[in-house]
């Protein structure tokens, strides 16, 4: 259910703000003093002067930004610059676990087994290529790689009259009764895999002002080699590509009230972002979704544990099934040996290992921006603002003073996201609900680091299923609430479009 009109909501937020504090219209930040609040309000105000770079703009991840590293394929893999030696050690142990290949049970290395029985990948880095975006199988039917980073979420629509939300478990949607929440194209020896994803692309030309044409690749998904009988007749596919890992601790440290303020304002063009409210499976509390393509996870710990469970079939304290996404209908799967060892704890990946993975995942550094003062970059930035891209891609925040970890506290960051759900139109729709997120809704993805995507993984592409081969194609896929902004890009002169892309490439 969407708010039909954003304005009354904004007015309500305004009234509440005025009642509670001296600075009406400002989102309340109980973590900040009045003096801080004024400084923060000033620094996060959207840019007005595009003749030069803004103060601190190059350090897009705050003090954790790496500024002295050579830009090479490792540029997404550095620990945040403001980590202590101690946290750096935890980060590096986490890095070892992130790239570790888990093995099937039983194995001689008891602490490293437990993979599957069904799985998408054996390690985290298999999908998060060098901590950046994953690779899709490819657009040329004759040169399809065995890329594993694109997974297929499965869901069936809720029945009429039944509860519209399913908010327990790893994924907040109704699974396929046999295949579960996602298709696992691999299984341990002795068990059939679930099936293989096949993608057919149709070319869709898009005419642009100035005589240019872009060609979009419109995908159709199907599943072959089904290992467990037919899929549910109403099943819907939601392909998801592994996103980059940058700055997630900083996103977690954005104050909830700042996100709610985003939801309460009216940026024009009919844009109205919505929160994906979730229920924490452990505490039962209502929590704000921030992570994954539909904001279906509240924090990095849940996101990581969900990936261990769904993608690798490994149990963790948060998601304790040793069988991952095996369903009761997959009896043989539930009869396979698992990897939990009583003397190592009750989970295949115990809390102490998850802690390292979390420290790692929270602290991958943002690279310093390049060319912030370049005339073309600044011209592109101006166009980005004027086209109302910032309606959803909100440029900057100052993180909580009381964030859980010291390195994330009170940092001015530039992620270019409102962390909210938006109707993105039929072209991108997957028809799949996830918590409050509907089938046409996606969370605004952060844009920081996007300009180095291909430096890190030359085969990487963009959007939730990697269908966009260029940043321009990604823009042109925008519809729904972003249709007006997208149309402005279509109407730009070729030089303006090039400037806009140049700006994105500087992020």
């Amino acid at each position, binding site marked *: 259910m969407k708010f039909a009109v954003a304005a009354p909501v904004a007015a309500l937020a305004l009234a509440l703000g005025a009642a509670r504090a001296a600075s009406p219209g400002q989102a309340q930040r109980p973590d900040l003093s009045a003096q801080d609040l004024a400084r923060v309000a000033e620094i996060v105000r959207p840019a007005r002067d595009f003749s030069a770079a803004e*103060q601190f703009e190059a350090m897009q991840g*705050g003090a954790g930004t790496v*500024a002295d590293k050579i830009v090479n394929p490792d540029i997404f893999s550095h620990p945040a610059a403001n980590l202590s*030696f101690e946290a750096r*050690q935890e980060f590096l142990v986490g890095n070892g676990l992130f790239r570790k290949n888990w093995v099937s049970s039983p194995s001689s290395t008891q602490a490293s087994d437990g993979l599957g029985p069904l799985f998408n990948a054996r390690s985290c880095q298999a999908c998060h290529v060098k901590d950046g975006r994953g690779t899709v199988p490819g657009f040329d039917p004759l040169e399809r790689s065995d890329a594993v980073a694109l997974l297929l979420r499965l869901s069936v629509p809720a029945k009429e009259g039944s509860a519209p939300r399913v908010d327990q478990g790893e994924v907040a949607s109704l699974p396929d009764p046999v295949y579960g929440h996602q298709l696992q194209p691999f299984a341990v020896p002795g068990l059939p895999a679930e099936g293989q994803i096949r993608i057919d692309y149709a070319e869709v030309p898009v005419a642009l002002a100035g005589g240019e044409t872009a060609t979009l690749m419109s995908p159709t998904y199907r599943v072959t080699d089904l290992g467990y009988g037919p899929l549910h007749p109403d099943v819907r596919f939601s392909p998801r590509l592994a996103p980059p890992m940058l700055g997630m601790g900083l996103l977690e440290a954005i104050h909830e009230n700042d996100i709610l303020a985003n939801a309460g304002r009216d940026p024009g063009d009919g844009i109205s972002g919505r929160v994906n409210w979730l229920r924490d499976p452990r505490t039962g509390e209502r929590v704000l979704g921030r992570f994954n393509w539909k904001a279906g996870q509240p924090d990095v710990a849940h996101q990581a544990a969900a990936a261990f469970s769904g993608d690798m079939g490994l149990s963790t304290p948060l998601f304790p099934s040793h069988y991952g996404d095996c369903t009761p209908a997959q009896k043989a799967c539930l009869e396979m040996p698992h990897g939990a060892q009583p003397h190592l704890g009750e989970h295949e990946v115990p809390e102490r*290992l998850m802690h390292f993975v979390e420290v790692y995942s929270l602290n991958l550094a943002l690279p*310093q921006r390049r060319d912030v003062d370049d005339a073309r970059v600044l011209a592109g930035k101006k166009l980005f603002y004027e086209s109302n891209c910032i309606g959803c891609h909100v440029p900057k925040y100052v993180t909580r003073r009381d964030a859980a970890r010291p390195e994330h506290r009170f940092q001015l960051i530039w992620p270019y996201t409102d962390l909210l759900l938006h109707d993105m139109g039929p072209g991108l729709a997957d028809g799949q609900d996830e918590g409050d997120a509907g089938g046409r809704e996606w969370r605004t993805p952060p844009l920081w680091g996007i300009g180095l995507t291909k430096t*890190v993984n030359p085969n990487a592409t963009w959007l939730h299923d990697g269908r966009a081969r260029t940043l321009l194609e990604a823009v042109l896929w925008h519809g729904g609430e972003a249709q007006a902004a997208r149309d402005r890009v279509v109407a730009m002169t070729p030089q303006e479009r090039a400037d806009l892309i140049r700006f994105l490439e500087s992020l």
Partner: protein
Amino acid sequence: MRKLLLAAALSAAAGAAAAQAAVEPAAVVKTYADVALAGYQDALSTAKTLQQAVDALIAKPSADALRAARKAWLDARVPYQQTEAFRFGNPIVDDWEGQVNAWPLDEGMIDYVDASYGTESDVNAYYVVNVIANEKLSVGGKPIDASAITAELLRDTLHEADGNEANVATGYHAVEFLLWGQDLNGSGPAPADRKGTPQERHAGNRPHTDFDPKACTGGHCERRAQYLKVATDLLVSDLEEMVGNWQAGGAARQAVESDPKAGLAAMLTGLGSLSYGELAGERMKLGLMLHDPEEEHDCFSDNTHNSHYYNQQGIVNVYLGRYARTGGGEVKGASLSDLVRARDAALDKEVRAKLDATLAAMQAMRDRAEKVETYDQMIAEGNAEGNAVVQAAIDRLVDQTRSLERVIALLDLGNIELEGSDSLDNPQAVFQ
């Protein structure tokens, strides 16, 4: 400005300590660069010895020739592992390191592996590609012509293919795999029929006939020999490049000498990062926690005890500003130790004591590896005594880093990135 203040403060401190000659940061970073140059020169000369041994093995394969090549590899590791103290803190070294010393590697990309290794891995399409056995590869959906094993094939096509860091096609560990083969003994006992030290009995056991086209074992012996030759030659040329970077006018030397304060920060960042994060964390703690022999740094040769020991020796070299060269002789000069002593003699004593304690703990690990059991056996589950030896070295590494942090505070080098003025003149300034 800050640089001037620091220099002034240091000079004042030096003046106060009348017994001490004034130690200038510029002289300290010069020693640092000199030690780096000598270290990489020694790594290069020992790699050239390895190259000769490899050429001899290929020209006339024999058990002795293989043994000689393995010994040359082990000798080459001695200076190289000491240079790892220069990796962190020097972006030029860090950028280059991946092609020289990357690990762990999926050996199945390079050559035949044991059946227990599995035949496919979703993680890595190159997992059992076996370049040596296959002249034409089709992986990642793309055909690769591997009919000639060349430097370009290894470096540009196969190394980190598909962005997978386990696809290690070049460097010390690729050569190590070719000389030793897989260590199939895990953390279990060595086969009863092998003789020598624990390392000699427990490491990989590739036969010399794997390189002998006339009595070929393992198949494709000419291609295997060619791979070994190309990978060894690449190692030599990579080391030549790094020697150049530390010679007069070289980029790495200039980076530290042009701004001595930044140079001091690079030195200490390097020592702290290697001690605490890389060595105590990723290379030791992880393997010990998982009891996983795959998490062993030099896993084919079972030489990990030496690899870790010489890392620590490299840390000592940088702090003391002295380096014992491979062929005899010593490089020495004004040191971090001198600089610290001039301001806080007690702290300098503390750091030196802790560095010694770590070296002693590493030596204990080395003694155990030479007399009792290999490193991968030490980290095995249930081996309380072996685990404790490794844990002791980890504890000392952590402890020495605490003192290094005090040195950073003493020299006022902390959080350089955080201390930008609120000025646009400084592109690294941050809001605070």
